């Protein structure tokens, strides 16, 4: 099995417009730990860029730079083609860069619609009361438009499944005007079906014109939905690949560590093929 050579950054769709987000050789050092070194990636509107890598590869560090949580030490970070230095998550949000972290920032005992608008509640009337009717209606509509099947927006978020919770968080980010959506391992804690549900919403957000950065360590989750794949290993980039330039097997092999693991990659490939159906085909009966 051969590992393809990374392509610079082909964008078949809109090569004229500057990418939504782009990093050029960014790095990040924590004290004596070099968490990230020389990583380049692009994210276009209406596309999904997957960031893959094993635990500790630097995936979270990269997206925290994108989300404004960490300032980068080296290289350049460009938003809409111009270099930026974000002062914090709020600044990223103001530029339309929304991040859904693993822990989701939702309150389990509160209802779906209350969570949906938490911190940005619509108000009405002279007393500026919480426009509950509108909040419920909009939450229901937004979820439905995303194809999310929540029976009852009054039910507590804690009673939703992990996949549904991820989906609500994604719908919320979309509703509040995100242009770029960053998802940190949204499928890693989920079963096959639930992961399929979340992948479907990632595709839906992409179809609405958002750029999605999708972090995962599972190439089987990344491949069906991704347009571009950035593979990280121990803080460095193994390259960014357009979908046309890499097969699922090659991606899996690359992730597993390259030449030395050809054999293991083969084994893993078989195991994966035996036990996990592709996420694209998963999730009957969930809509």
């Amino acid at each position, binding site marked *: 099995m051969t590992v393809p050579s990374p392509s610079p950054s082909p964008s078949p769709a809109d090569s004229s417009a500057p990418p939504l987000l782009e990093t050029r050789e960014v790095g990040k050092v924590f004290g004596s730990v070099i968490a990230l070194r020389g990583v380049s990636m692009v994210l276009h509107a209406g596309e999904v860029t997957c960031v893959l890598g094993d635990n500790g590869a630097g995936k979270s560090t990269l997206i925290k730079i994108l989300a404004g949580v960490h300032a980068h030490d080296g290289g350049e970070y460009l938003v809409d083609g111009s270099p930026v230095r974000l002062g914090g998550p709020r600044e990223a949000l103001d530029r339309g860069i929304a991040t859904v972290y693993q*822990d*989701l*920032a*939702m*309150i*389990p*005992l*509160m209802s779906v619609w*209350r969570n949906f*608008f*938490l*911190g*940005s*509640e619509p*108000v009405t009337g002279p007393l*500026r*009361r*919480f426009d*509950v009717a509108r909040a419920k209606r909009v939450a229901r509509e937004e979820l439905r438009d995303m194809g999310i*099947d929540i*029976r*009852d927006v009054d*039910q*507590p978020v*804690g*009673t*939703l*499944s*992990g*996949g549904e919770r991820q989906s609500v968080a994604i719908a919320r980010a979309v509703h509040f005007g995100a242009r770029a959506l960053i998802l940190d391992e949204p499928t890693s804690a*989920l*079963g096959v*079906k*639930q992961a399929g549900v979340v992948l479907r919403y990632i595709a839906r957000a992409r179809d609405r014109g958002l750029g999605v950065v999708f972090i995962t360590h599972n190439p089987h989750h990344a491949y069906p939905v991704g347009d571009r794949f950035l593979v990280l290993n121990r803080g460095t980039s193994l390259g960014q690949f357009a979908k046309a330039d890499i097969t699922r097997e090659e991606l899996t092999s690359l992730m597993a560590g390259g030449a030395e693991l050809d054999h293991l990659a083969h084994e893993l490939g078989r195991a994966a093929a035996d036990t996990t159906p592709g996420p694209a085909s998963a999730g009957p*009966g*969930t809509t």
Partner: protein
Amino acid sequence: MTSVPADERLAGAGVLRRLLVRPELGSVVGAVAVFAFFSSQSAVFRSADGVANWLDPASTLGIMAVAIALLMIGGEFDLSAGVLTGTTGLVMVTLATRFGWNVWLAMLAGLVPALAIGFLNGLLVVRTKLPSFIVTLGTFLMLQGLNLGITKAITGTVQVGGLRRADGYEGARAVLAGSVTVGGVDFRVAIFWWLAVTALATWVLMRTRAGNWIFAIGGDEQAARAVGVPAARVKIGLFMTTATAAWLVGSIMALRLSSVQANAGIGQEFIYIIAAVIGGCLLTGGYGSAVGASIGALIFGMADKGIVFAGWDADWFKFFLGGMLLLATLANSLVRRYAEEARR
């Protein structure tokens, strides 16, 4: 992890679930049972006069329980709330009787130390991140000392009295501590204040942004902050709200008795918390209701007077309280566990 088929989820979200998820449910059942029990023991208890009689202790307790419930939903406790009712009363009566202030003015002046103490409680909790249980235990003890020390220094005794002779007493008394005759039965005005406070608190909780934030900071403060909820401001506001309620109740009690004991309100702080918990507030925050806390207070009122009407020794009241509290917390934890099992 497997995903549950859709129709099973539907069954899970049925009527029973909906009911169980209401925080007030346990207290409503409790209130009906307590009412039925004492009604069967005493005809006076179930008469209109009897009702007016047991609504009275429920009212002042209810005002405090509602405020404490808001604070507990926001994830904090206030042990200084009881003694603060004494402090505000003492300030008011002292200013009116020793310094010749008009009663209304003296009453308003009592609000100043109350708000300051509420603010201080909140600020300390928010800044130090210490448990509010400890912080307010500290202010509780300090206020207890201040109430006694200053009262003794000014009057040489452990009470200030004579409010009756002060300017504006009758008017203030009519508004806060008088009675209203409805259908030939005298009801204390405080009962209407209690209803108003309950309605206002319910509106704030259910229909304002602040209400959403209160649930959120009590449910998961980190997550609430992450989406931009001003958690520190909300918490300080909640402590100032309990302080304001303590001021209202302290004023009502002072006007009613025309004097205040230096140890007034001590020991009440736990009763407020117990009423809120019986009303469905979780000790861990993020869940509860103002109506529930009011019903918790109602149960207290009924038991307090019902035991007397039934001709029993009043000592049984505490036993009854303990039993109610245990039952209520047990019911709450069952509801909680049920909600958690329903996840996934």
